[in-house]
């Protein structure tokens, strides 16, 4: 068995005094889309925040490309190719769409390639081209989410961490965004870790899934098997 791209070994973390993750073991292989599903407060976002270094690991280890990520600061983790698109469309409201995208390439210096990738983002989300001089804050919700994802991709990441990309968006736009995620995964060989409330959609998009319940992983399987698992169906897919 080859070593996974990302591996959590008994990771514990939390906020202040409160432990949120009680020892998580999971792995993500190169080229996969892996989803974390679970109800509110299960620790899905915390898992991503810990992987991107915003949260510190209390106990256990996170491994990535054969190196331990414990204690590596967030900007360094971005430099190593893990890009986090945080929950709730965290865009730069007071910068233009184009500036937002360029900030995604903050750690790159290959100007020509950046320009090309900028065009590529606009091809991927044509609406962003129309809005390229508009301030991020003036975009609609769906456009902001597209911008956040496009900005994440501008960093040429090897791994994209997506936190609740469907939050508060119309179903049609959600489908659009998930289509793009799949395409990016396939065409650009970007590994994706997807956190989603909408378990149905997440399991349709992903190869594998983990079910998180109050800080512990209770189930892990291929996505289609999880989708047919009666326990999962009852708890997360509405029977």
């Amino acid at each position, binding site marked *: 068995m080859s070593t996974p791209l990302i591996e959590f070994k008994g990771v514990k973390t939390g906020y202040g005094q409160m432990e949120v993750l009680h020892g998580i073991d999971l792995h993500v292989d190169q080229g996969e889309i892996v989803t974390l599903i679970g109800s509110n407060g299960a620790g899905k976002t915390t898992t991503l925040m810990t992987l991107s270094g915003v949260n510190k690991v209390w106990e256990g280890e996170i491994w990535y490309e054969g190196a331990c990520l414990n204690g590596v600061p967030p*900007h360094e983790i971005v430099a190593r190719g893990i890009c986090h698109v*945080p929950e709730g469309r965290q865009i730069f409201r*007071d910068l233009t769409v184009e500036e937002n995208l360029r900030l*995604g390439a903050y750690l790159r210096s290959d100007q020509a390639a950046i320009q090309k990738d900028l065009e590529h983002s606009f091809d991927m989300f044509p609406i962003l081209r129309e809005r390229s001089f*508009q301030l991020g804050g003036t975009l609609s919700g769906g456009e902001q989410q597209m911008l956040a994802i496009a900005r994440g991709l501008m960093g040429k990441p090897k791994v994209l961490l997506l936190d609740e990309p469907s939050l508060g968006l119309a179903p049609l736009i959600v489908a659009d965004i998930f289509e793009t995620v799949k395409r990016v995964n396939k065409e650009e060989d970007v590994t994706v870790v997807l956190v989603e409330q909408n378990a149905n959609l997440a399991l349709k998009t992903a190869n594998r899934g983990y079910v998180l319940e109050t800080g512990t992983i209770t189930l892990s399987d291929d996505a289609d098997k999880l989708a047919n698992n009666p326990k999962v169906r009852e708890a997360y897919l509405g029977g």
Partner: protein
Amino acid sequence: MTLPRKETRFLLIALVALLLLPFATMLLGDRAWLLSLSVGSYCLLYMINAQALNVQVGMTGLLNLGPIAFVGLGAYTGALMLTAGDNALIGFYAGFVPELSGHLRWVLFFLDPNFLAYLTVIPVAIVLSMLLSLLLGLPTLKLSGDYFAIVTLGFAQIFYLVVKNEAWLTKGSAGVTDVPALFSFCTGPNRIEFFSHTAHYFFGVAVLAVCLYVVVRLRDSYLGRGLLAVRDNELAAQSNGVNVAKYRMLSFMVFSALAALGGVAMLARAKFVSPNDLNFMESILFLCCVVLGGMGSVRGVLLGGIALGALGEVMRIGLPVVSETIGYEIPAQVRYVLFGMILILVMRYRPNGILPVAAEEHAGGLEKLGAHRDAEPTFFKLGTKG
């Protein structure tokens, strides 16, 4: 990012206008001339210090409630170094620069021993101020915005108390008096009358020019984009690889360097510095210039500095005259009441300041497309995420 042409033009015109002001007011007679110099040089200090603060508060979104401590550090460093050992520093330079006479003295102003001493003092003040910001920033910059603001507030008060009480170093509440003038030809029987009144003013304009250059270049650079990103959305900045702690430190240090420079300009004007100059209200007024002008907007903050500086000085000079005329003593604090009212009105009708930032940060692209920026005052978003 290219320089917004409109902004550059504005700033250059402003600097030239400031430079020409003393010559223009000369035509109005001696009293008007002296008044314009007094008001003008006072405005310059506000413009310089507000612009320094703009880097930290306006461009990085870090509220600093104690900028006066860094201005004061600059002024005190200058005053103590210049007066040490009976003006030894000036004596040292006088020892080996040729003694000039007549008009050569001002034509070759950079050979003046006083001026050389001032030039020596500036880098020391800047380095000390940056060191201080580093010392203060390292343990505290990881605090979220509002807590950091309280730290700076506390620090400015401590600085004030130390300066007031450690008389062995700072001369205590009497302050440092008899600081030598900017040029040797500004004082004494052989002074050149014109320059004894204007030298500090022109020095102020030069310092402002340096300040503006640094701020604009910084904002339009790679580093500047990082600062704006941190201000706009810390989490997003972090997840795009911007080292938030580093950029906060950077903005703090750039601020402290420029503020120290402002302190030396203040010293050149007053030739005196005392703990009274470290008043908390000064910090608030610098902050008001930034908010009034438009947080992060270079042009706006310049206008904010002119507005509040002029208002303060005009009222300081004008109130006694008015009091005398109407036969009723108006207390000097009335100017703070007026400041408050102006601030409220500006926030009501122009919540983003006199000249909001949109136009210049985005290289004119927005203006052309007629895009607008939402009317939320950014001031109240300080320290909050998202």
